């Protein structure tokens, strides 16, 4: 029993953080795009005349989603139609299970790992869940009995399958360096210094893999510049026949995937919870300064650093989403198979060579 309670607490903590961040992102996306385009963004929803810079739009949106008619096309497949958004949302959320959001928390003589499940094949599990997300998209398209939906589903499946490959291969480099598939080990392996001053983060060791993973990750989230499966404004994608909260789930899934990709970027390339020069006893700067901190403060700082990094990458992804136009479909497929895949394999080879030499 005493082992179950901390896990339940961790699950509650992680999911409340991730889901509230996802809800917050719906607001942030509107405001950020508004500021980029010299607009002011959603600010009309108010409670008793109090507007809170548009934050109530989150409540208003979800209320609207829940109260709308839940429509299933008459000749569609009712079971798959209902099931599809749940697959999508589940697969996106399941990834949180293995993401470490902090080192260890020592309470008395007990040591808790700040991660829901430290599995030694976490990376494989994570990639598996991300590929299962395709089923959500594809079932949604095929069960709608709508040719636009079907085509959108096909586009989505093809795109996600292609970028899945890049995603997997670009991470191989980090796995080779850390020698483990456990995300916790991968983060711990980055807790070093290169040449005595540079944190040994993935971005410095694997800059090419970082770009590849960011590209593939953004393609996984199915948002502009890779929003061919959705194309809300004109080409219409796989969720054309969805309304109400089922559509809301797809919508939320997109934002959850943004957070998942940010979290993975943080874990693999930005040292997870690591803060440069911070160890269990405090800061030790290479130029000789030292700040002593108690372990609990260090742990809190690390958790905050993790969430800060995740938030920062969410910001970057939103910025890219609102900057770039959409790819053409042949460009999209051409980029994956002709440019990114060779680059990813090249990266693995180079990494192997370096490991062999040094």
């Amino acid at each position, binding site marked *: 029993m005493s082992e179950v309670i901390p896990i339940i607490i961790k699950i509650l903590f992680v999911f409340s953080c991730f889901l509230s961040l996802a809800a917050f992102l719906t607001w942030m996306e509107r405001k950020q795009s*508004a*500021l*980029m385009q*010299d607009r*002011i963004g959603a600010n009309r929803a108010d409670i008793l005349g109090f507007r809170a810079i548009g934050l109530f739009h989150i409540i208003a949106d979800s209320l609207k989603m829940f109260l709308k008619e839940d429509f299933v096309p008459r000749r569609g497949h009712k079971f798959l139609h209902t099931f599809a958004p749940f697959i999508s949302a589940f697969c996106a959320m399941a990834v949180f299970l293995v993401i470490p959001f902090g080192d260890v928390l020592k309470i008395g003589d007990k040591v808790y790992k700040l991660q829901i499940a430290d599995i030694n094949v976490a990376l494989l599990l994570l990639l598996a869940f991300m590929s299962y997300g395709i089923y959500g998209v594809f079932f949604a398209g095929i069960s709608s009995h709508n040719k636009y939906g079907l085509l959108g589903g096909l586009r989505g499946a093809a795109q996600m399958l292609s970028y899945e490959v890049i995603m997997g291969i670009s991470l191989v480099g980090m796995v080779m360096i850390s020698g483990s598939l456990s995300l916790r080990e991968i983060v711990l392996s980055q807790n070093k210094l290169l040449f005595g001053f540079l944190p040994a983060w993935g971005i410095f060791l694997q800059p090419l893999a970082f770009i590849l993973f960011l590209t593939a990750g953004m393609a996984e989230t199915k948002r502009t510049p890779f929003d061919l499966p959705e194309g809300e404004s004109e080409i219409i994608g796989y969720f054309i026949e969805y309304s109400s909260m089922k559509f809301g789930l797809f919508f939320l899934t997109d934002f959850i995937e943004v957070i998942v990709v940010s979290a993975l970027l943080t874990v693999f390339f930005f040292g997870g919870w690591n803060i440069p020069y911070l160890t269990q006893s405090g800061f030790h700067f290479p130029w000789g300064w030292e700040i002593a901190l108690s372990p609990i403060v260090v742990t809190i700082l690390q958790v905050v650093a993790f969430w800060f990094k995740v938030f920062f990458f969410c910001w970057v992804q939103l910025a890219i989403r*609102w*900057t*770039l136009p959409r790819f053409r479909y042949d460009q999209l497929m051409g980029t994956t198979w002709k440019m990114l895949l060779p680059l990813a394999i090249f990266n693995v080879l180079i990494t192997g060579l370096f490991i062999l030499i040094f």
Partner: protein
Amino acid sequence: MDKKKKDLNTIQFFYITEIIRGLYITSVHFFKNLALHILHLFGIAKNKKAMVTYQYPEEKREITRRARTRHRIMKREDGTPRCVACMMCETVCPARCIYIVAKEVENPEVEKAPEIFEIDLGRCIYCGYCVEACPEDAIRMDTFILDTASYDRDSMLLTLEDLLNHDNQDDLYNINYMKK
């Protein structure tokens, strides 16, 4: 015919520099506007606008003097409508939204006046032909009212009273006209 597209140079071909350039532009806008919004919260630098949009119902755009806006009917000096119910505007109106019923008046110089004069704004296309057609300069479109929002069509019907009791009291042109 279609011109051949300019080939991308090597750096542009790899796209990443171009992405960074684009991100730089949008980020500059983002941080500039964010900073300005925060300054505005504290009441600083109000003269620098952080957005180019207007917060419409509260903040209206300036309308040029030439814009065709909601109609009004001009009055004579004794307060009666200047319209002589000649039906010119009713005839010319392409949307058929003017409805006039004439009546006789004592004044032999005027002879006729409208009993009923209605404009259905739900159908009006703001073409301004009625203004052009009027021989008496009785109808004008310069009240600067542009928002005709309503829950039903009936409330979009302007009666003679609505048309006479307009806000725009600018009768300058009117006076000059009379002097001639």
